[in-house]
C-alpha cells in the first residue's frame, strides 16, 4: 500500500507570498428575522418597559425566566405571567480579558449569571456586571439592573445596560 497518495512537499513562507498556494474564499449572506412568538415577544416588550417577566407552571410551581409557554420538565403549557425583580444574586461570573472579536483587554468584561429575586431557584438572566471593581466581584454578590433610558430601549436584553452591586 502506498503511504502517500499525493505528491507533497513542505510549504515555505515564500510560496504563500508568491501566491503559489491558492485559497478559496466566500462571504456567506445569511440574514434572519425570527418570530419571537408569545413568550419571548412578551419578555422583550416588557424589557422595553423596564420590567422582567417570567411564566409560572402550576404543576412544578416554578417561575421561569426567561418565560416560556411550556414547561420543559413537566411538558405542559405554563399557566400565568409572573413579574420578577430586577435584583438578584450572582451565581457565577468570570473576568474576561478577551473581547468577543479577540481583542485583548486591560479592563475585563464581567459576564455573570444572576439568579433573579422572585424567580425560582436557579433561574434568572445571563448578563454583564458594571460599575464595580473587578477584584471585588464575588459569587453571592447582590446586584441590580441598570436600565437604559426608556427612549434608548429597543426590546432587547441590552435594554438593561448592566447589573451593578446593590
Amino acid at each position, binding site marked *: 500500500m502506498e503511504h502517500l497518495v499525493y505528491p507533497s512537499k513542505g510549504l515555505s513562507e515564500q510560496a504563500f507570498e508568491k501566491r503559489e498556494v491558492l485559497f478559496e474564499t466566500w462571504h456567506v449572506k445569511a*440574514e434572519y428575522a425570527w418570530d*419571537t412568538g408569545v413568550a419571548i415577544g412578551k419578555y422583550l416588550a416588557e424589557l422595553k418597559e423596564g420590567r422582567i417577566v417570567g411564566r409560572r407552571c402550576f404543576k412544578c410551581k416554578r417561575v421561569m425566566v426567561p418565560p416560556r409557554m411550556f414547561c420543559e420538565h413537566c411538558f405542559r403549557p405554563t399557566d400565568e405571567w409572573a413579574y420578577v425583580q430586577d435584583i438578584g444574586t450572582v451565581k457565577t461570573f468570570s473576568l474576561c480579558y478577551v473581547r468577543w472579536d479577540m481583542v485583548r483587554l486591560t479592563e475585563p468584561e464581567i459576564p455573570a449569571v444572576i439568579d433573579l429575586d422572585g424567580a425560582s431557584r436557579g433561574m434568572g438572566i445571563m448578563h454583564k456586571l458594571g460599575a464595580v471593581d473587578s477584584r471585588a466581584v464575588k459569587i453571592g454578590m447582590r446586584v441590580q439592573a441598570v436600565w437604559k433610558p426608556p427612549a434608548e430601549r429597543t426590546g432587547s436584553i441590552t435594554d438593561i445596560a448592566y447589573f451593578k452591586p446593590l
Partner: protein
Amino acid sequence: MNRTVDIVGVGWSGFGSITPDLSYKEMIFQAATRAYADAGIDPRNDAQGFVTAAEDYHEGTSIFDEYTPDQLGAVLRPMHTITGDGLHALAAAYMNIASGLMNVVVVEAHSKASNILTLDHITAFAEDPTFERPLAINPVALAGLEMQRGLDAGRYTVEQCAQVVVKNKNNALANPAAAYAAAIGKKPVLEAQPLATPLTRLMAASHADGAIVFVLADSDTAKRFKGKPVRVRGIGWANDTPALDSREWLDAKYARKAAEMAYRVAQIRHPRGEIDFAEVDDTFAYKELQHLEALQLTEPGQAGALTEQGATERAGALPVNPSGGGLGVGSLLDANGLARALEVVLQLRGEAGARQLHKANTGLAFAWRGLPTTSGAAVVLSN
C-alpha cells in the same frame, strides 16, 4: 432483533406562508402536544429517544441540535439531530427501535422558512465554492437545467408539468393544512413568469412554515398505546454525486436507489402492483414525474402521460400527492419528507377527511432534499 416498527402518533402545526404568532419552539410544542395526545403517551415517561432533522443555516443558529429538547419533552433524554430530511430522522428512529435499543422514539422536523431573509443565498451556499458559486447564478437555474434535459429527452412535456401543478394545487383545496391551495388551470401555470426556462414561477413550490412530530414504537409496545398503528414496512435513502458538472441530469438515481432499499426492506417486488398511492417530492413540478419513474411507480417516460390521463388524481389508479404535495401544501425545508409521510399516515388511518382515498393500504412517501442536492429518502407504510 429486527423488530417491527409502527408510527403510533402524528401531530403538526401549520402550515402557513408566515407564522408570526408563534416562535419555532412554540410551533414545535404545539405539534408535539398533538402527536403525544394522538399516541396517548407522556413523553417524559414513555419516550426513550428523540431525533430531529434540522439544518443550521436554515435555523440561523450553529449547532442547532442544542435547541431541540425543551419543546419536545426531551430534556435529559437521548436526543440527536440529523442534518438531512425528516425521513432521514425517521430512518434513525426506525433503527433505534428495530435494533432493540429503544422502544419509543419521537421524530421532529420543522420549517421557519419565512424567517430566513436570504434563503436564495443559503441555497447557493450549498453549492461547490470552486466550481459553482463563483458563477453567481441563482440556484433555481439548476432546476431549469434539469427540466430542460427531461424535456429534450422526451420524458415529459411542459403541459404535463403544468398538469402536475393543477392537480396538486387542486388537491390541496381539500387539505385544511395546505398553504398554497388553488383552483387553478393549466394556462396560468404555463403563462406565469419564467424563473429559469422552462420552469415558470407556478411550477416551483413556495415555502411554508410548520412543524411535524411523529411517535414511533416497536409493535409490541405500540399495542399498549391508544393510537392506530401504521407499520413502517421499509425505509431507504441514497445520495448521488454532488457534482453538477458530471451529473446525468436526467434520471433521479438517488430516488431509484432510496426506493430500492425501502422496497427490499419491505419485501416489495412489484411496486406498481403493491403501492396504492404515493406522496412524492414535487418541489418543482417536473420532479414529481421524474421521481415517479425513478421510484418504479410508472414506466420510464410514462408519468407525464398518466398525469394527463388523470391516473395520478385522487380518483385515479395511482393517486400521487393527494395532500397537495409541496406545490399545494408548501415547501417545508427539512420537514418536507415528514409532510409527505404525514399524509400517507392519515390516508392509511382513514383520517384524511375530504381527500380520503378509496384504496389506501400501502403508501410510499419520498423526499428530496432540494436544490442543489441529490439526496433522497423513501419510506413504505402500511395499515
